[in-house]
Each structure stands twice: as structure tokens, then as C-alpha cells.
């Protein structure tokens, strides 16, 4: 068997990126207290950490771990695994690699796989993990109740979710675009934030976290300074067709599933993903603890959310996804999704009802003038003056909007909506807000205006409108200053001025310095500055390790000897020292070290009962007290 010294040495030899990835799969209680490879080896071999790692090993891996108590090449491990437990050489090889990857065995320079002492001790604690128990317990036979649901009914039932997930996630993306979803310092969203998103995106509170998780896996949101915000890819995703959206979400979700879940699914695609999956998981992972119900529950929730299961039963889409991959599943999803519609109802109350899923391009354009009130298989939008103003600022015209609405309406344009369009278009641009660049000729500022310190201005062609604006009490806090018949100046920036006027229902557009119209700004909610997201402790640990020591094996050995002696001094224990003699031979010394420093170790020689001082360079190895 190998020692922690072997593990520390192998840790120091690892590429930092590989080390970081592998450590990500292990639970370390206090990563911030790890300063070098020896600390890390100790942390990895702490019984609690080992126990946790064993829970994630399947039966084959545990058998291989038992077999590696006697160091040997991977190919020889198979002989020790009970012949009745059917495993292949490849499976044993894969298991040995997995064990090495989890730092539960070390691969010695000669290629032999050797388990580590502390791992074996933990392994021996659990009677379910003996070779006999592991190999002798057969897979459970799970009797499933037979219902009369045919696969087509099952697929039809889940079809609603296939569509709903892409719509719900789209709403979540739009919600975080308006106000980022603040991440807690310890990770996750606080309940009030979850509720806010639930309300804004009109999804169940319980679904917010899985939806953000799905968006994160698919690279549709990223953590900004104020919280989760849409990535650059999100816009493209929102424009793509539904089955494509679904495929990218589910593909990313599948890729982010824990290895253990994938292992279980690989063997149990067809059974119910409810209780039978759990029973099988408990057999497959005999040391499995709390993670089994937790992860399976989370997995089951997500599977239902994605429309992969209905009442725990996998659908044809789920089977295709696991057996043939994402594109096969996508073909099925395309057929199950409702067909997009291109006609809506426009109503007197300014609502627009799409009596089915509106094609993404039409939905996107409609959203420029209308707010979504409910989104599902059918969606309800409400057109508002503010929405029309924004669309006009974005380059639409009354005629283009009218043409668009007529083209999608199955019942024409109701009179109140037509009136609103005409009225809003007529008012659009009556007030124009722009930044003022001091000293710029284009601003054409008077001397008085320059001394006022204006940074923005609002103009109108009609002086009477400027009169009303100047007299408006609600705008008094802005301290607007008249500058000629057509202009008011402001010391606040153009966006602040724009929103102040908009809030008072003035028809205002934003212009650039050359008086060209700009798109309406997005009013993002101002968030309190958040605590910077915590760093990645594993990444920091690896960085510390990289900078803490030299590269050679000799350095590792020397450092390890000093650490062992230090430990013996603190614990006041006697250790066996292997000391190199000048003739090249070695001798053994039983010593209780009392101090280490200056390149020497001082201590009491137990055999002769005298104080000795030895150069550290002469000590070849340190071992624990003789039994």
C-alpha cells in the first residue's frame, strides 16, 4: 500500500489545471488551510473526505479499490474481483483511472496501482464494502406497476413541458436583462430575489433555481458585477426556433449532470425514473449516502421541467436523448412541439392574444411595442403608448407598425389601438433630449448656458411646449434652465433627463450630438452594489501549491521529512529515522525529536538515551514508532 508521502509527491507532479479539475470532484473541508502538497495530501486522506469520496464510487470501482490493497498493474486487478461479478478489463481499467483521479489510489512509477493506507482504513469501517459484500449482492429486481399509458400518450402529456421550458427560460432571460439576479455570497439566489424573478418571468418559485441553472449550463447567463445577466449568446438563442432552443438547453444540462447520475441512467433508460431509479442507485453505489436522494430528486425535477419525463416515466424524447444523443431527441421534439402561428387577436382593451405559440420573429417584434402579460401555449401582450414610443425610437414608423399589426391580426386593428398609434406617432419626438458637450460648436450654447454647467438639453420646435415644460412643477427638481425659445438645459445627464420627462408622460426621444435619434435606453433597475462573488477556493489552493515548492522529487522528499519531524516534535513521539552513512550505507535510529532548525534535527536517542543532533541532509526517511 502507498503512503501519504506518495500521494503528496504525485500531487506536486500534476499539471495545475488537471489538479484543479480533479480536486473539483473531491470534498475538502477547509481548502483555505492547505498551503502545500503535504497539507493537501493530508486533507484528501482525512477520513471524512475519504468517506465522502467512497459514496460516489460504484460497485466496480469499490471492488477495484479493494483489490488495489496489493499494488499491481491494472490488468492484474481483474483477477481479484469476484469472477461472479461480471466486469470487463475495460471496466476495471476505467475504475482504476477513476480511483486515481479521485486520489484514492496512486499509480506508482512502475505503473502499479496501490491503494492508500487511510483509504483502506475507511474502507474497512463499512461491512457493506468488503469484497464479499460488494461482489455477492446482486442487482435488485424492481417490480414496476404496469399502467395502461402508451408511449404516445406519455409523449403528448410531456409535450407541453417541451415548449414551456423554452418559453419560461426566455422570460427569465428577459427578466434578468432588466434587473440582474443577485447571487448570494454563499451561492444561489435569496428567496426575495427568487420571488422577484418568479413574478417577473411568471414562473413557479420552485422553478426559478433550475431555470437559472439551465441557463447557466447553456451559457445563456453569466455572473456580472450586479448578478446574473444574459450573455451575448442569449439574444441568438431567443431568436432561434423552439426545438433548437430546447436542444441547446438539454444538451448543456446533460453535459452538466453528475457522472454518477449518467452512470445510473446509462443502465436504466427505460425504467421509471422515480422509485426504481433510486433503488437501483442505492445498489449501484453501496457507500452512497445523502447524495442519492438529493441528486436524484434534483435530476427528476429537471427532467420533468425539460419534458423528459411525465410522472417519472421517461418519454420517447428522453430515451432518444440518452441512447442516440441530442440531435435525435431534437428531431422528436420538433414533431411534438406545437406549430407556430402567425395570426393574433387585437382587442379594444389594447391586449393582443396569440391563440397559440407565436412565431419567434413575430413575438420578438410584437414585444417592441407591447408588454407580455402571460406567456404559455397562448400568450397575452398589452400594447402601450410607451411601447409604441420605444418602437418609433428604434426606427419603426406609424405606417410600419400599422402594416405589421394588420398583417398579424385576424380581426383588423380596433379603433382605440388605431387611435393610439396615430396619436403616439404624432406626438413622437416633440421633445428631444441630448447630451451637451461643453465647448462643442454643435451645442451652440450661449455664454449664460455655458456658465450654468449644463450636461444635457431638451429641445422642441414648439415654444409653447417648452413653456409648459418649464412651468411643470413635477420637473422642478431637475432645475431646468431656459435657453432661447426652443431649449431647456439640465445639469443632470441626458438619460436622467430622458426618464424624468418620460415619467411625466412627455413624448421624448433621445438624440446623439448630431441630432440623430438614438434607441430608447433600457431602464435597468439600479441595484445596490453587491459583495464581490467569492473566489474559487480550489483554484486559489492550486495557485498556492504551484508557488509553494520546487519541482524535483528530492525537494518533495526533503520537505516531507522536515514536516514529519515537525509533527513528531509537536506530538512528542518517537520516530524511526533512516540515516545515511558516509560509506553509503544506512542505519536506523529511534529518536524523539525535540527541535528542527538550521538544517539540523535535535532529539533524544531512545536506544542510548542521549541527546543527538543530526544534519537533515543525512536523514533518508522518517517512519512512525515501531509497533
Amino acid at each position, binding site marked *: 500500500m502507498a503512503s501519504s508521502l506518495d500521494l503528496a509527491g504525485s500531487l506536486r507532479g500534476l499539471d495545475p489545471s488537471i489538479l484543479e479539475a480533479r480536486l473539483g470532484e473531491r470534498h475538502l473541508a477547509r481548502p483555505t488551510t492547505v498551503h502545500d502538497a503535504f497539507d493537501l495530501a493530508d486533507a484528501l486522506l482525512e477520513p471524512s473526505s475519504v468517506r465522502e469520496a467512497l459514496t460516489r464510487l460504484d460497485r466496480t470501482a469499490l471492488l477495484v479499490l479493494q483489490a488495489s490493497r496489493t499494488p499491481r498493474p491494472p490488468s492484474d486487478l481483474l483477477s481479484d474481483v469476484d469472477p461472479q461479478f461480471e466486469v470487463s478489463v475495460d471496466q476495471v481499467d476505467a475504475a482504476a483511472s477513476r480511483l486515481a483521479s479521485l486520489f484514492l489510489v496512486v499509480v506508482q512509477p512502475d505503473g502499479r496501482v496501490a491503494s492508500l493506507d487511510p483509504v483502506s482504513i475507511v474502507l474497512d469501517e463499512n461491512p457493506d464494502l468488503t469484497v464479499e459484500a460488494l461482489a455477492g449482492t446482486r442487482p435488485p429486481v424492481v417490480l414496476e406497476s404496469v399502467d395502461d399509458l402508451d408511449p404516445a400518450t406519455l409523449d403528448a402529456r410531456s409535450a407541453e413541458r417541451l415548449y414551456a421550458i423554452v418559453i419560461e427560460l426566455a422570460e427569465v432571460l428577459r427578466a434578468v436583462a432588466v434587473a440582474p439576479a443577485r447571487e448570494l455570497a454563499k451561492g444561489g439566489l435569496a428567496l426575495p430575489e427568487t420571488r422577484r424573478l418568479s413574478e417577473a418571468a411568471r414562473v413557479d418559485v420552485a422553478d426559478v433555481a433550475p431555470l437559472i441553472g439551465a441557463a447557466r449550463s447553456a451559457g445563456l447567463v453569466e455572473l456580472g458585477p450586479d448578478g446574473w445577466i444574459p450573455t451575448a449568446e442569449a439574444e441568438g438563442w431567443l431568436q432561434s426556433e423552439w426545438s433548437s432552443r430546447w436542444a441547446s438547453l438539454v444538451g448543456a444540462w446533460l453535459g452538466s449532470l453528475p457522472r454518477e447520475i449518467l452512470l445510473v441512467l446509462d443502465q436504466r433508460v427505460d425504467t421509471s425514473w422515480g422509485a426504481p431509479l433510486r433503488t437501483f442507485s442505492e445498489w449501484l453505489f453501496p457507500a452512497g449516502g445523502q447524495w442519492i436522494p438529493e441528486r436524484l430528486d434534483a435530476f427528476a425535477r429537471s427532467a420533468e421541467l425539460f419534458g423528459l419525463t411525465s*410522472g417519472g416515466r421517461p418519454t420517447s424524447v428522453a430515451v432518444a436523448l440518452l441512447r442516440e444523443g441530442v440531435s435525435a431527441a431534437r428531431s422528436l421534439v420538433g414533431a411534438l412541439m406545437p406549430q407556430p402561428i402567425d395570426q393574433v*387577436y387585437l*382587442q*379594444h*382593451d389594447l391586449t393582443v392574444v396569440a391563440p397559440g405559440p407565436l412565431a419567434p420573429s413575430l413575438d420578438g417584434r410584437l414585444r417592441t411595442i407591447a408588454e407580455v402579460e402571460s406567456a404559455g*401555449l397562448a400568450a397575452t401582450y398589452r400594447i402601450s403608448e410607451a411601447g409604441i414610443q420605444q418602437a418609433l425610437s428604434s426606427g419603426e414608423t406609424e405606417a410600419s407598425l400599422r402594416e405589421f399589426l394588420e398583417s398579424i391580426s385576424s380581426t383588423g386593428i380596433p379603433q382605440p389601438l388605431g387611435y393610439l398609434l396615430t396619436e403616439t406617432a404624432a406626438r413622437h419626438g416633440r421633445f428631444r433630449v441630448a447630451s451637451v458637450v461643453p465647448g462643442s460648436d454643435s451645442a451652440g450654447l450661449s455664454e449664460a448656458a455655458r456658465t450654468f454647467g449644463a450636461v444635457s438639453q431638451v429641445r422642441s420646435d414648439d415654444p409653447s411646449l417648452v413653456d*409648459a415644460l418649464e412651468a411643470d412643477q413635477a420637473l422642478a427638481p431637475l432645475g431646468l434652465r431656459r435657453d432661447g425659445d426652443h431649449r431647456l438645459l439640465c445639469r443632470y445627464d441626458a438619460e436622467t433627463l430622458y426618464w424624468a420627462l418620460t415619467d411625466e408622460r412627455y413624448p421624448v426621444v433621445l438624440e446623439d450630438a448630431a441630432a440623430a435619434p438614438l434607441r430608447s435606453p433600457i431602464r435597468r433597475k439600479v441595484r445596490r452594489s453587491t459583495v464581490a462573488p467569492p473566489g474559487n477556493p480550489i483554484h486559489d489552493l492550486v495557485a498556492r501549491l504551484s508557488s509553494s515548492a520546487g519541482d524535483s522529487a528530492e525537494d518533495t522528499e526533503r520537505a516531507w521529512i522536515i514536516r514529519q519531524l515537525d509533527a513528531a516534535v509537536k506530538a512528542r513521539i518517537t520516530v524511526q529515522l533512516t540515516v545515511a552513512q558516509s560509506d553509503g550505507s544506512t542505519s536506523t535510529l529511534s529518536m524523539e525529536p525535540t527541535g528542527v532548525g538550521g538544517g539540523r534535527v535535535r532529539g533524544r536517542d531512545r536506544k542510548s538515551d542521549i541527546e543527538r543532533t543530526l544534519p537533515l541532509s543525512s536523514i533518508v526517511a522518517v517512519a512512525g514508532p515501531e509497533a
Partner: protein
Amino acid sequence: MNGPLIVQSDRTVLLEVAHPDAEDARHDLSVFAELERAPEHVHTYRITRLGLWNARAAGHTAEDMLGTLEKYSKFPVPQSVTVDIGETVARYGRIVVERDGTQLLLRGTDTAVLREVARNKKIAELLVGKRSDDVYELAEWARGEVKQQLIKLGWPAEDNAGYTPGTPHEIALDTSEWALRGYQQEAVDNFFSGGSGVVVLPCGAGKTLVGAGAMAQAKTTTLILVTNTVSARQWRDELLKRTTLTEDEIGEYSGSVKEVKPVTIATYQILTARRAGKYTHLSLLDALDWGLVVYDEVHLLPAPVFKLTAELQARRRLGLTATLVREDGREADVFSLIGPKRFDAPWKEIEAQGFISPASCYEVRVDLPQDARLEYAASADDERYRLAATAPIKLDVVHQLVAKHDGEQILVIGQYLDQIDELAKSLGAPKLTGATPVEERQRLFQAFRDGEVKVLVVSKVANFSVDLPEATVAIQVSGSYGSRQEEAQRLGRLLRPKKSGLPASFYTLVSRDTVDQDFAQNRQRFLAEQGYSYTILDSIALAA
């Protein structure tokens, strides 16, 4: 699968009105879903727990309801909705209130459920003994309260404890000149077979007649609770006209008169009047051995009356309303204490008879002159609405509208007394405000009904305190008239289609680019949701 319904996972159901099967779908859907909005093309219904329990109480099963959804749905019904309907409906009637001689019992058809609710602190207080695992004895006074508590726990009880017959009193319908319509008779029959409960009928569909029908069937002393004195008198007049009851048999119990007769009509206000913290007219509830209690406009039932009603559970109760939706959200109390919905209107039939044809609504936008505009801008928020609402330029528009509807019965409605004075003077029309004496009001109303007065200027106060006579044109110059369902119904009652078949018209004058317009926007949304047509006009175009 291409029906008129779209069932959404948020429990809303959209109905495409133009679909050939829309009428049938609406008929079946209204059994268990509440209509939320009814604009012209797509109506929105919501499936609620109470709606499902109401339907269950009326004998409909979850399979029936799911069958309706599946039959008329355009897309597969979301599984979450299917599961939810099944589970919710199954909760009704697991607990039953019944009677064994003089002892009230709480029986559980599911022992585990009964055990669970009996452990609840508030219910445990109402139980006086345990007979077996599935039967508890209930305090006599707790029949209403236990139902309230049970519904809060999500286990609505079925009340089979029966009713006191009351003192017999001969009442019959006088059908020499009329007869109950089919749906009215059906409502009466459903009510009686169910015990107690609520009949939902739109305004104009004859709720009072259903009440009279119920009384004629019960033939017992009856207490009728109504919203105000005017309504009390309308009930009295209607009962005298439609039944064999005479003036001696009908009493009014209100602020001004305190009569207790075999049929007594009392106002909610008098019943909830308190002196020194005590209800002073509670004795009315025990003044006679009432066999029937009728609650008019049950969606307006004041909160204290619920408490009183909880103690009236031994008496048969009939609720009448146009909507089960309450502004205060106490629909569950109506369910527990009055009873489940026993009848809902067959809209198609009633509409066909022309009783609920909506009026046409017009919003007239008025441009403020520059000086008024500047005054408005320079004013503080609290002044702005008054300035916008009372803009003198509105007077011209009122004149134009009155001229346009020459010969029709026109109501002009305002909120501010100065403006009302000015309108009355300018139009040469009588005015009616909160300060107008009752006799003068009645005289003016009668003159208006008789056509002697063509234009009447009324204040908002007057409009709320009394029932306005019917008109074909209403012009609202100021004041936010409609923002709630109840007010839209009021509007429907106020404005009836003319005999000539022309629709009634409701005009609202709005100052452009002012807060007046914000109110108008809400009104537009609300009235359109109630099914009224809505048109926006410019005052200049109107003049042209």
C-alpha cells in the same frame, strides 16, 4: 384537437369567441371556471379551487370537468392542470357536517383526513366529543365556523345537517300576467335540491324573481338582506307585484323604519350598525323563526354579516349575485357560510333575450387651451386632477353631445359641485346632488322617467346613493366612474338599449395629456374587458 379553448398551465383558460363551438364550450366551462375578462375576441376564465368545489357541490365530477377541457381544448391539457383538478375536486366532501337528533356531527369519509383536521387547534375548539375514529360531535353554535376553518385547511365540508323549516307562511307567485322564465325556475329548483347556496345571474336577468320563486316554494317566514333602502323598496314593490303577499305581510327594517313582518326586508347597514361597540339590531335575526334568509348582492355582503351568518346556519340561505368575485377576496366565506354556487346563468339564453346587451362607450379627448395647459403644468399633483376634470372647454363638448342625442333621455354626471352648477345652468337642466332632498329627488326621477325632463345633471354622490333611472345616454364630465366590475354592471343597468334597437351610449370627456387620461386608460381597459365596445374620439372631430 382544434377546439375553442386553450388551457394554460397557470390555470387560465382562453376561449376563442369566434370558434363555432365557443358557445357550447362556454356553457360547459362556466360550470367550474370563473370568467375573468370578456373582451370581444378572447375571453379569459380561471380555474380556482372554489370554482372546482362549487362544481363538485353541484354534482359535477373531476372527470366531467376534465372531459370538458379535453373535448374543447386546442392543445393537450397540461398535465399539471389535470392532476390539480383531480386532486382538488377529491378534497370536497371528505368531511361532512350532519345531524343526529339534536347533535351536530362531523363525519369523515376518510379517517386520516378527519384525524388531521381534528388535530387542528381551531377545529379542536369546536369539537365537543368523539364518537369513533370517523365521527366527532360538533358544538351546536359551530356549524358555520367549522366550515370556514375546514375550507381554510383545504377540506371543504359538505353540509347535510338540514334546516329548520321556519314558521309556515303562505306565499305564492301571482302569475296572472307573467311566469318565471325557464332558467329562473331551474335556479329555484337547483337551490332547493342543494339546500343553501348562491344563484349567479347577470344584471337584468331577474334575480329578484328567483328570490320570489324561492320564497313561494319555501312558504315560510323570510328575511331578505339588501344593500340599501332604495333596493329594499324595489324588493318590496316587486314582491307586491309578483306574489300574493300584501303590504301587511312585508316589513322594512332600515334606518328610517323598523318593521318586523313575516317577510322582512332589512339593509346590511342596519344589521351591522353598532352602538357602544355592540350590534344593536341583532335581535332581528331571532325576531321570528325565519325559514329562509335571502342575501341580495352577496358579493357585497359586509364582513360583519359573515360573522352573523355563521350563526344562521340552521336556516336555509339563498345568495343572489351577478358575480362570485369579491373585491375583498372573501369568496371562500360565501362558499362556507351561504353555500356553494347552485346555479349559473346560461348567458346565451339571457343575451338572446336582450337583457345584457352592453352599451357603447366613447372617450372624447379634449385639448386644453395653452393657458389652461400652463396652469395645469404649474400646479401641484393634488390640484392637477381637478383642473383637468373641470376644464371649461368640456362644457362645449357636452352641448355638442346633448345636441347630437336630441330627444333622448340624457344623464350628465359630474364630480365637482361648481361644475355641476355650471352644467345645469348652461344646459338649462335640473341638477341632483347629495344635498337634494329625497322628495325632490323622487320628483325629478319620475319626471325623467316620464320624459318630462330630458336632461338631468347628477353628481357622483347622487349616483352612488340612489339607483339612477334608466337613460339611453350618459355623459361623464368628471369623476372616475368605472374602475370595478360592480360599476360596469351599474353602467349596464343604467344604460339600456333603446326600444328602437339603437345601443345606449356612454361618453366620458377626457382632457388630453393630463392625469384625466390615466383614469381613462384604466376605464378603457376595464370596460373593454367587460365586453363593452370602446371608441376614442377627438372633440374637434365630434364638432365636425
